[in-house]
């Protein structure tokens, strides 16, 4: 009697239960598990995005407070104003060719540095929000030191943010009879940040 009932279990119900389990696993459990892993990955991604966004919002709020409270006295004012200007060829040309003290004529109408040619292109918009233009100038100068002070003016003291892209200076820390009064000519490539 028992033997008969058990054979019914083994012959009919057990394969049915196992088949149901396998089908359920394939059709239901697997998609549920797949959704679970996808959502877990999405949560991690969103948490990272949330952390970044919170940090950025906090940093902006702190800066906003600092700038509101002490804009006129803050160190960052000078730096910000270097970047906070639109692309304007006339302004940039003036800043490279006219404003630097090295390009001003001497009392005897001679020059220490002459900008022989100037070219500019708008460049590209950067992911940060700023844009970076390209300026290329050919210069002639009476010494390496004049060129160095010209570069220092552009990168440190000018009211615009210039970066040096490429320049080759004939500097020698132990020159062997080099004529220091010889005029030098070279090409200089600069980057100029602006905010449109």
């Amino acid at each position, binding site marked *: 009697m028992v033997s008969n009932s058990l054979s019914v279990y083994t012959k009919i119900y057990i394969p049915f239960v196992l088949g149901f389990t396998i089908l359920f696993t394939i059709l239901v459990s697997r998609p549920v598990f797949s959704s*679970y892993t996808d959502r877990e990955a999405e949560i991690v991604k969103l948490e990272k995005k949330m952390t970044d966004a919170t940090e950025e*919002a906090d940093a902006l709020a702190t800066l906003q407070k600092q700038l509101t409270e002490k804009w006129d006295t803050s160190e960052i004012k000078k730096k910000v104003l270097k970047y906070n200007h639109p692309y304007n060829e006339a302004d940039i040309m003036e800043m490279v060719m006219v404003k630097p003290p090295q390009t001003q004529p001497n009392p005897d109408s001679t020059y220490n540095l002459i900008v022989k040619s100037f070219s500019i292109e708008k460049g590209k918009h950067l992911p940060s929000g700023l844009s970076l233009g390209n300026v290329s100038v050919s210069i002639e100068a009476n010494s390496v030191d004049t060129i160095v002070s010209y570069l220092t003016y552009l990168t440190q003291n000018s009211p615009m943010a210039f970066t040096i892209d490429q320049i080759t200076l004939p500097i020698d820390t132990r020159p062997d009879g080099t004529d220091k009064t010889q005029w030098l000519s070279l090409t200089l490539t600069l980057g100029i940040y602006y905010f449109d």
Partner: protein
Amino acid sequence: MQSPSHPHESHTPEERTTVSSGKVSWYVSIILMATVLAGTIMLWGYGIWQMRVISSLESEIGATETKIAEASKDRNVLIAHIVSDPKKVRPSLDVADLIKKFRDAAELGDVRFQGFMIRQDVISTNLIANSDQYGSEDAVIKLIKMMRDHKQNVRVLSMKPVEMVAWDPKKRTTAIELIVIPESTIKK
């Protein structure tokens, strides 16, 4: 007297084995099915909780991005934020100060720097070392000392590995490349 409620007692050992393995298979398949069902229900429930978390995170991110957009309307604040990140703007080189440091380093190390090229915040120059008038030691020792000193005192420039030294023991020359380190990442 045998009781009908104890059927095992009326079976042979082979029959008892069949009965026992049949029961085990039955229970195993039931437990397996129950486990799969329970696991699936738990994952499904957890999935609902995950969707709530995602929805909550998305709304929080939306609110934070609105705050960022509001703060970014002030151009000065936005630019101050951009320029405070050294990865977002290239360093502006103080060339005069840099060349002075090169000259001082050359004098201190009794070597000669020749040529000075700046290209995308990488400075390239040639380093020349001469041995003393007696030629008592290889001039490369001066170059090695300079390289070691630089590595121990990196502040503004990081030196790329020097891969070649040429000439003879009385006069050694090598080309070096130095990368400008953004101001705010310099270790004080």
